[in-house]
């Protein structure tokens, strides 16, 4: 299987949905990918099951604040440098590139890295969505170290980070990224095929592609939001999906601080001005509260889409007055285990709540 130029728009759209408000603008990633494919040909897509147990896989991703990505865009040679340096550090060149985060720009960037380096890309990732921090990945939750990690900026400055502790890795990489201007590329999470088979979420590249396609296709027949919800309900990971709220943006507070895009957004129902939903975000949407009651919370997915076209709206393009629907989707089971919740549950984000699966929250 190959990713074709025709697929890029649907992939970017599905990745934006799974980006849960963050993950960066896939459009920029898809422009870079378009060039990479045009110059190097489309990379081969490999299923996790078809990997050799001893194959060496490198993760590739961008890290920083999505707001900054909209300005700094992408380079291309920075990814190549990161992969090369990681190979030098480990003493082995990779057999394939594996995505870390399927939500947002990190769906398309690793595919571009694969095209540029001539390696295959694995149809999987470590989240099935987007998360703001390096340790919030299934790989590291279950024991694969994010480091050694090579961090590269647009000036082609590079830093190699080595630590046993994934949270320390996040802190050091974040500190480096902040000093580098909050938009860097990394190659990290070197792992074996065996480890990928144990800890990767399979097929998420095609899931993103098909979700994006579901939105586009259902526009023709009527209701794209219902169309994508129907698609999600038919998948293994996202089977509990529903509309949490419908309304317009009535307040928005957003700032770039501590290495993230932080803030909250308030939506007011068009039918009843007293009915409000508030979303808090740290790059991605973390919790949805309707009139004070939690309706969805991390690691479950919260997505905001245009009410009529179904187009996903990232935090960066939220604007006062937009008419939207807020969708809640269950996270993959691998993210809802007790070990996972220590790392990607509400308390890991500083929220004073416990996780309740979305399917257990009354409407």
């Amino acid at each position, binding site marked *: 299987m190959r990713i074709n130029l025709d697929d890029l728009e649907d992939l970017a759209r599905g990745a934006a949905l799974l980006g849960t408000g963050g993950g960066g603008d896939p459009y920029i990633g898809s422009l870079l990918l378009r060039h990479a494919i045009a110059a190097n040909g489309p990379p081969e897509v490999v299923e996790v099951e078809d990997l050799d147990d001893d194959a060496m896989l490198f993760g590739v991703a961008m890290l920083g*604040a999505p707001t*900054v990505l909209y*300005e700094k*865009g992408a380079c291309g040679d920075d990814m190549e440098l990161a992969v090369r340096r990681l190979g030098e550090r480990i003493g082995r060149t990779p057999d394939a590139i594996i995505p870390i985060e399927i939500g947002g720009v990190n769906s398309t960037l690793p595919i571009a890295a694969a095209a540029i380096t001539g390696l295959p890309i694995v149809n999987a990732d470590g989240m099935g969505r987007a998360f703001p921090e390096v340790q919030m990945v299934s790989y590291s939750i279950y024991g694969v170290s994010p480091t050694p990690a090579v961090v590269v900026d647009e000036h082609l400055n590079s830093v190699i980070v080595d630590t046993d502790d994934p949270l320390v890795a996040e802190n050091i990489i974040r500190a480096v990224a902040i000093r580098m201007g909050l938009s860097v590329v990394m190659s990290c999470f070197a792992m074996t095929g065996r480890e990928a088979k144990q800890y990767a979420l399979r097929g998420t590249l095609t899931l993103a592609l098909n979700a994006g396609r579901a939105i586009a296709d259902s526009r023709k027949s009527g209701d794209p939001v219902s169309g994508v919800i129907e698609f999600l309900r038919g998948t293994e990971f996202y089977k509990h999906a529903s509309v949490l709220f419908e309304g317009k943006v009535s307040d928005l507070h957003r700032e770039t601080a501590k290495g993230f895009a932080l803030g909250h957004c308030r939506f007011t129902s068009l039918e009843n001005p007293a009915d409000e939903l508030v979303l808090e975000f740290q790059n991605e949407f973390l919790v949805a509260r309707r009139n004070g009651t939690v309706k969805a919370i991390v690691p479950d997915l919260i997505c905001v889409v*245009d009410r009529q076209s179904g187009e996903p709206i990232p935090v960066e393009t939220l604007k006062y*007055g937009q008419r939207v629907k807020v969708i809640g989707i269950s996270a993959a089971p691998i993210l809802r285990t007790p070990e996972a919740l220590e790392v990607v549950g509400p308390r890991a984000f500083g929220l004073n709540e416990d996780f309740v699966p979305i399917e257990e929250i009354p409407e």
Partner: protein
Amino acid sequence: MALRIGVDVGGTNTDAVLIDGRSVITACKTPTTSDVESGVAEALNEVLCEPTANVENVHAVMIGTTHFTNAFVERRSLSQVGILRIALPAARGIPPLVDWPDELADAIGRHVFMIRGGYQYDGQINAELDEKAVRSAAQQCRDKGIRSIAVCGLFSPVNSEMEERASRIVEEIIPDAVITLSSRIGRIGILARENAAIINASLCELAPRVIRSFRNALQTLKISAPLYISQNDGTLMSAEFAERYPVMTFSSGPTNSMRGAAYLCGVNDAIVVDIGGTTTDIGMLVNGFPREATIYAELGGVRTNIRMPDVLSLGLGGGSIVTRDPELRIGPQSVGFSLTEEALVFGGDTLTTSDVAVAAGYAKLGDAALTGDLDSAVVERAVKLIHSMIEDGIDTMKLSADPVPVILVGGGSILVGRDIPGTSEVIVPQHADVANAIGASIAQIGGEIDRMYSYEELGRDAAMEQAYAAARSAATDAGAIPGTTTIVDVEELPLAYIPGGTVRLRVKAVGELKASA
């Protein structure tokens, strides 16, 4: 008696209305001329023929025009643009014009200069401005005879200093350069902002010519009242401002027709369907103003991020050509302003949608007998197709399945003769065919401030209050009646590099234009 004249210069027709306070005294419609000036002068002349009208009592003339949109979309009269992107080493994987349609990028010449410089998100310097490279770029532009320059700097909305410095260097080398700085036009998002600046620059030599023809028309009629030009958001800008920022007029046409429609019907929330000679624009009115485009606004196939109304355009108008082979199709080709020569009802030999409406019996135009030979089955299918195109368009713009009121405006509104499913009522106000010009005439004058406030010192609420007050002041300074001002747009951009939790606030206020002294 404080009269205003609203004018809409469309691709096909130039419309004018004479307004006294809240009432329309008279209106007229005349074909747009290729020199623009004659058509405007003719329209002004006609409305001033009204016996009660006196040129001394005209206190303002407002002109809305699709001239710049049309020029850009049709790739006409576009200048070659020198594009200076000051961002290296960042963003080099997404160079300028990377997402432009090929013919459009070719039309403006692909003169791209990637230059070192730019800021970080927090205002710190990412790379020093390479002044030598700016000089070299300017020299190359000068040698190619390029006068129109677009400058886009990395994070320029946070700090525009490098853009301004580059602008001064360009002016030293090309003294008559017309320079568009991206920081004045767009927001965070380098490609979208840069694209807006490039589009603006491509129209910067056309703009003064067009504005001058408006001024000449006023002079011919001995109108000494000030000239205002309609903006995208339904407010007015001075003619001088419009010469520099023609891209701010792009959707003033649809905005004006929607606001004019709202005014005529006394309705604030509705779908507005404006059927012109070549296109139909469909928008949604919310609280008297058009709903804004959600994410990006695409202008001629190019992504930008300036504030624009959400308008769906269909290739259906009163002059649209109806073809029967191989299957029934309407438009997008149109006879445009040649309707009165080419349509069947006027003795021509082109089957147009207007002919269909006349043949079906619900429109009166020209000589109905000249459609006598048309096959009634074909007429019926064409009528159905016209209505289903409109119905689909309305459905795309609606926010729910609930029926909505529809206001029908524009000269091509004669094409609608049947009920449209999904609508609660179809209102065709009097003077519907000049709703654009009415919208221009009732437009309010706006003022905008763009300042930094310390949230730490003042607190967010107090800072907002101060900013709101400053915006209202700016509006009254521009000519708004004090006490009539409202806040229409607020944008917050936190700036971390300046101590004190500093935030950049852009606030726009609008108010009723007062009668000039």
